[in-house]
């Protein structure tokens, strides 16, 4: 697939941890120091080892959508502490911290836009917000995005990144697995395509609900994807796990995902695929 259409100018993004100058980011895999400007033009993929760095929701939108095409839908729905959940810290305090860190109400960003001209509704999970955990807000925003796509006749793309359900909302979090499925069925009944893009990491309740009932499931190279976490499994079976277990490539060979697609090729892949799957009306 030709990459040249991919390399257009990106909006600059802040990168680099506390120990690194703002101009540089260290590759978490090969430890190479990478110019942030180069990283951005390379879709945040390490030039040296090909490692796909984790993105926050805004970066994902930038990497995936045509420049300037994004219109945000999410934002009005805010989390609440229905259980008065208290552990070492209260749930509202945790939320406040995560909101401050990410600048959004919860671990989800949705909106509309275009991929190489193909209009889509897009939902992106934000791992930076509480490990991308799914509570009532994530569930509601995913559901609304699906319903928006159904109403406006666009395909839906969901980018997942989640450690699982949000403990602090207990059974209410669990119910989001069903809620999102209900909304996705509304989309399916319209004959509109839904593609999920599983990124590192996607585990727990997200894997066991909306992430894996997509018409086409695409995974990013090297992404950890599974239901149970690797440590829990290792203790259950009491032996070490095979190399690459629960990684995107492992899942491909076990028939669970349709393709593992390099981040630099995802726009072309999705645009072509969504074009092909857009329902052509056959005479009734």
């Amino acid at each position, binding site marked *: 697939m030709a990459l040249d259409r991919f390399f257009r100018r990106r909006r600059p993004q802040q990168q680099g941890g506390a120990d690194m100058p703002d101009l540089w980011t260290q590759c978490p895999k090969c430890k190479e120091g990478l110019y942030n400007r180069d990283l951005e033009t390379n879709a945040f993929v390490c030039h040296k080892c090909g490692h796909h760095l984790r993105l926050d929701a805004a970066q994902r939108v930038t990497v995936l959508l045509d420049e300037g095409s994004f219109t945000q839908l999410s934002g009005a729905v805010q989390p609440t502490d229905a259980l008065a959940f208290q552990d070492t810290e209260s749930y509202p305090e945790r939320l406040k911290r995560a909101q401050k860190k990410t600048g959004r109400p919860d671990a989800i960003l949705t909106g509309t836009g275009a991929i190489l001209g193909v209009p889509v509704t897009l939902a992106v999970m934000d791992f930076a917000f509480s490990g991308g955990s799914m509570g009532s807000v994530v569930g509601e925003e995913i559901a609304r995005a699906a319903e928006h796509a159904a109403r406006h006749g666009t395909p839906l793309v969901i980018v997942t990144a989640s450690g699982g359900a949000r403990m602090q909302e207990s*059974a209410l979090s*669990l119910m989001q697995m*069903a*809620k999102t499925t209900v909304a996705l*069925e509304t989309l399916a009944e319209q004959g509109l395509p839904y593609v999920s893009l599983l990124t590192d990491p996607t585990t727990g309740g997200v894997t066991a609900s909306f992430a894996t009932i997509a018409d086409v499931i695409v995974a990013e190279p090297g992404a950890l994807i599974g*239901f149970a976490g690797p440590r829990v499994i290792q203790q259950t079976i009491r032996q070490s796990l095979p190399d690459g277990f629960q990684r995107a490539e492992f899942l491909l060979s076990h028939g669970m995902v349709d393709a593992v697609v390099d981040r630099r090729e995802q726009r072309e892949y999705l645009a072509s695929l969504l074009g092909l799957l857009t329902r052509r009306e056959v005479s009734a």
Partner: protein
Amino acid sequence: MTAPIDTLKELEARVRDLEVTAQRTGQNLDAAITPLRAEVDRLRAAQNPAQPPAPKGDPTRWERVQLARAPGRPTALDYVEHLCTEFTELHGDRRYGDDPALIGGPARWQGVPVMLLLQQKGRDTKSKIKRRFGSANPEGYRKAVRLMDLADKFGLPVVALVDTQGAYPGLEAEERGQGWAIAESIRRMLNLRVPVVNVVIGEGGSGGALAIGVGNRVLIQENAWYSVISPEGAASIIWKDASKAPLAAEALRLTAPDLLELGIVEEVIPEPEGGAHLNPQQAAQAVGEAVTRHLRDLMAQSPTDLKTGRAARFRRLGAYTETT
């Protein structure tokens, strides 16, 4: 019958082993430990046949969790034996295997033809191990989907008895798509055009429980629990200490009255004084009556209404505020 001493000793050693590992590594091993620990308790109780004293007054959340795991608490098949005739177990997912942790088939529930879906923990040590303490593999959920297809085709209402600590966290389960299988089961149940009544009869652990839990009416027994994570799991994450499970149980609000208040269940089914294990017959009568009442109510609805009503039920659930 007295349990074989060897089995008990072996299980105790295994539990200690796992606890040490959990302590040392700070990992959450409760999926592996808890069922074994419950089995140890049961075997000990069997060797000392006196039942533990029933808690007085309103039990705490943690006491209810213990009641949900009490030795002798009726399993799904115990309810079926009390309430059903002509249960014909249908086996297999027609793709890979047959899972003894999630079973089912057509039966008459107090005379009403239904399709049963049952998470079955096992009734003795051997069958508990065979049935992985009710923790299903992907094959179990795929069999459930197949049986729901049959229920839909033949207009059989579905009765699903939920009793699991969660889906089985095994290597092979992951290889064969545990998450995929659960998601498919949830979707299939949501799309059914027949009545679906679910009862949490013991433990309702996470996605593995929800997989057969998305019906028109979700009921729960008085001392059952239902949560996104077990109290031990939550305690391990929060305090790095599974023994803080009683605190986690409070925080998670996982009891039947909590769930009724949160709008997650329609009804709490009363248990005999002291817990279902003290009078399985009476517990079964209460479950039977409640399910049959809801079934008769739902059977008056059209297939379309059943599906859209169920969808609307789950579309609503969740707690958030909205700015304008």
